[in-house]
């Protein structure tokens, strides 16, 4: 069987960042943190690396190697793994209207995370992909995510504690994003509350299968524009009957051409002719 072409890019770690040895495996499961093209990120025992590659979704059975976020590419989006939490968070976010400049990363940082301290120093200098939007996570991750994260962490040959801490970096991601945007506020307009959905965080294939199940219907759940009032729209307003104007007629004609196909068999041709009036209608009505 032809092996599936993997769609991932090789990692391109930043030269200035010290890559930990097991970075490739770690990244397989972990959420990738954004890259810092300029910052000198010193992480002590962080198993994470900062890459400038974009994340890809690979269907390989072996651990997919995710790349870091591309700092310049456009289509990044958070995965629907965090969809559930995201929905709640969006509500909060919309209410809070956090100003970028006033984001305080400290307040959202989970306690007792030693590696975080190093990150904080670098948060301000992180650059990330332009269109990514920050999101503040004040709520704990969904248990599903935590379970998935632990499962993956267990599969990695690392110190569990650190790897687990890595997974809680999803909290940090939002912080970093927020902070990063603070740094970039001059360059970017505020994209506070938009986030990209569907971003694949390079989980393993089994997890993506699980994720996909949980993602079902997620495109229809979530915030809506809340502009139209449902009741007002669905009530049947008796409208004055006007004869179709030229615009309507032409629109109907345009629609009809969308579904035009050449005939597939003689019966379809006969159906068309019957509709045009060229063919007798069957069964023939002899009394009319």
């Amino acid at each position, binding site marked *: *069987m*032809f092996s*599936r*072409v993997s*769609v991932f*890019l090789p990692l391109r770690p930043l030269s200035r960042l010290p890559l930990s040895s097991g970075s490739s495996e770690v990244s397989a499961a972990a959420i990738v943190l954004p890259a810092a093209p300029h910052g000198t990120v010193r992480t002590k025992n962080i198993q994470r690396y900062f890459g400038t*590659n*974009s*994340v*890809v*979704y690979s269907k390989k059975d072996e651990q997919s190697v995710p*790349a870091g976020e591309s700092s310049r*590419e*456009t*289509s*990044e989006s958070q*995965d629907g793994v965090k969809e559930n939490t995201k929905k709640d968070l969006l509500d909060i976010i919309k209410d809070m209207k956090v100003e970028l400049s006033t984001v305080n990363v400290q307040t959202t940082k989970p306690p007792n995370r030693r590696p975080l301290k190093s990150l904080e120093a670098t948060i301000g200098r992180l650059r990330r992909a332009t*269109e990514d*939007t920050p999101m503040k996570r004040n709520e704990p991750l969904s248990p599903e995510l935590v379970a998935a994260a632990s499962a993956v962490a267990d599969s990695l040959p690392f110190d569990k504690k650190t790897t687990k801490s890595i997974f809680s970096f999803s909290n940090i991601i939002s912080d970093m994003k927020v902070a990063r945007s603070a740094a970039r506020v001059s360059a970017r*307009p505020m*994209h506070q509350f*938009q*986030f990209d*959905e*569907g*971003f*694949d965080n390079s989980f393993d294939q089994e997890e993506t299968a699980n994720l996909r199940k949980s*993602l*079902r219907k*997620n*495109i*229809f759940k*979530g*915030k*809506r*524009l*809340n*502009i*139209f*009032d*449902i009741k007002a*729209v669905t009530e049947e*307003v008796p409208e004055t009957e006007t004869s179709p*104007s*030229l*615009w309507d007629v*032409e*629109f109907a004609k345009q*629609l009809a051409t*969308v*579904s*035009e196909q*050449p*005939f597939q068999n003689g*019966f*379809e041709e*006969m159906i068309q002719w019957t509709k*045009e009036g060229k063919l007798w209608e069957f*069964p*023939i009505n002899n009394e009319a």
Partner: protein
Amino acid sequence: MAGAMSLCWLRVRSGLCLPLTVRRASSCERAPSCRFYSGSTTLPKVNGTDKTGIEEIVIPRKKTWDKVAVLQALASTVNRDTTAAPYAFQDDPYLIPTSSMESRLFLLAKKSGENAAKFVINSHPKYFQKDIAEPHIPCLMPESFEPQIEDVSEAALKERIKLKKVKASVDMFDQLSQAGTTVSLETTNSLLDLLCYCGDQEPPADYQFQQTEQSEELEEATEENSKKSRTKAGHQFRVTWRANNNAERIFALIPEKNAHSYCTMIRGMVKHRAHVQALNLYTELLNSRLRADVYTFNALIEAKASMRNEKFEVKWNNILELLKEMVAQKVKPNLQTFNTILKCLRRFSVPARLPALQTLREMKAVGIEPSLATYHHIIQLFYQHEGLSKASSLIIYDIMNELVGKKFSPRDPDDGIFFQSAMKVCSSLRDLELAYQVHGLLNTGDNRKLLGPDYQRNFYYSKFFSVLCLMEQIDVTLKWYKDLIPSVFFPHSQTLIDLLRALDVANRLEVIPQIWKDSKEYGHTFRSELREEILMLMARDKHPPELQVAFADCAADIKCTYESQDDRHTAPDWPANPLSCIAVLFLRAGRTQEA
């Protein structure tokens, strides 16, 4: 008559109050609209609950069938013949197309013949007056395109508007206003409709030759016919709204404009890319305290989104404001509203993702079922820069899960592009299961009709086939190959190269001579990449002797094509690679002389 007999049979069966098993015959087709089911849906109790023992005879209500119901039932029983050319072509060996260019040419020729005949009938109606069809077939009789009423009156104006003669109607209107007669608002509005829709130019039509300088020469006209059908699409795009054209002039002349006048002007302006003026007119409309209708709002959304040099948030906020004004004016949004929003969001790929999804949810909440065009816009939004970044989105899976098993009818002009873009995403994601899902969706119900014109169909199938070549096992791929080609589409040389590579991987190189024969048939004889690929694959490894013979024959054939190509082009420069491959193959087959 078979049809009548079947109908009697149907009545008999329904007399037994059986459920409508005939439905199976017209199984997957949509039910004709006028079909009524039997009034009595339950069987009369036969357990003897009637005390007198006499069974109630329940006479079912008479069913009425649509006039095409029988034909549709018959049509649903016919499957596609994979070995035959599509039905649209004449079944003559000379007239069966062997490449996509030819198939397009033949179809156009057929259509232009019909148009030419219509043109002849319409330009000389006096020869075609004898009507022998019983009952009368109106569409075969000559139509008249010249206005009959010659005097200056409102009825004449209406007639000209109906015939879509722009210049004549404007002249008539001017004459009327000069003569002092007031034209009713309704007529003026319909005149404005015509002007705005056509952008103050004569509308192009299939065989209307009135706008060209009267072409008395029929021969010339029939040639123009085929050209017109191709340039018609292009013609529309180049029409732009000139300032102070007739529409604006007439609009200014109307003493009391009602909402319809404003609306149609705005729609015309947006259609012909005069966005700023459209927005100005909209403010005028608001100042006059008139209500705009939903189509106008759709046009305004498009106008706001086409303003240049604005950031995304500003545009998005503008659009949201428009929507709020819609609510304030109590205008109900329709499907086109949301589709227009999504289409405008497509220009910004990443920041527009959340708004796009919010729009989708809003649409659902309001109760409007998203159409295929909606999903197409969303797919385009999320997968736009597939080449640039590899971060893919899972949203296509969500969408496909949502769409499984649904039947669609065209509700938006962009519906036809959905399958093409979905399959493009499948091929870039290289996901075979998804491709099968999309194909399955295509085959449910009548969705096949939404595949669009020729080139879209070809694109869809070539992408589908390339995913198959990459991902599927070779036997299944070969089965699809036989199934799809040539009855559905003609492969590009790239498709054949993909297939060859798949064969190579699966070690089924013995099929190569067959592929070469097929490619000759489809007109790829002189494509050098294809030939080089074939030769290289054949010459690469040693093969069992009988295969070598076959390969050598094939190589000889290819050599002939090179030679005949040299006859045509004056530069006989055989590329080195194929030459060596051919030599190697001949040697292996023992045909040392030819080598």
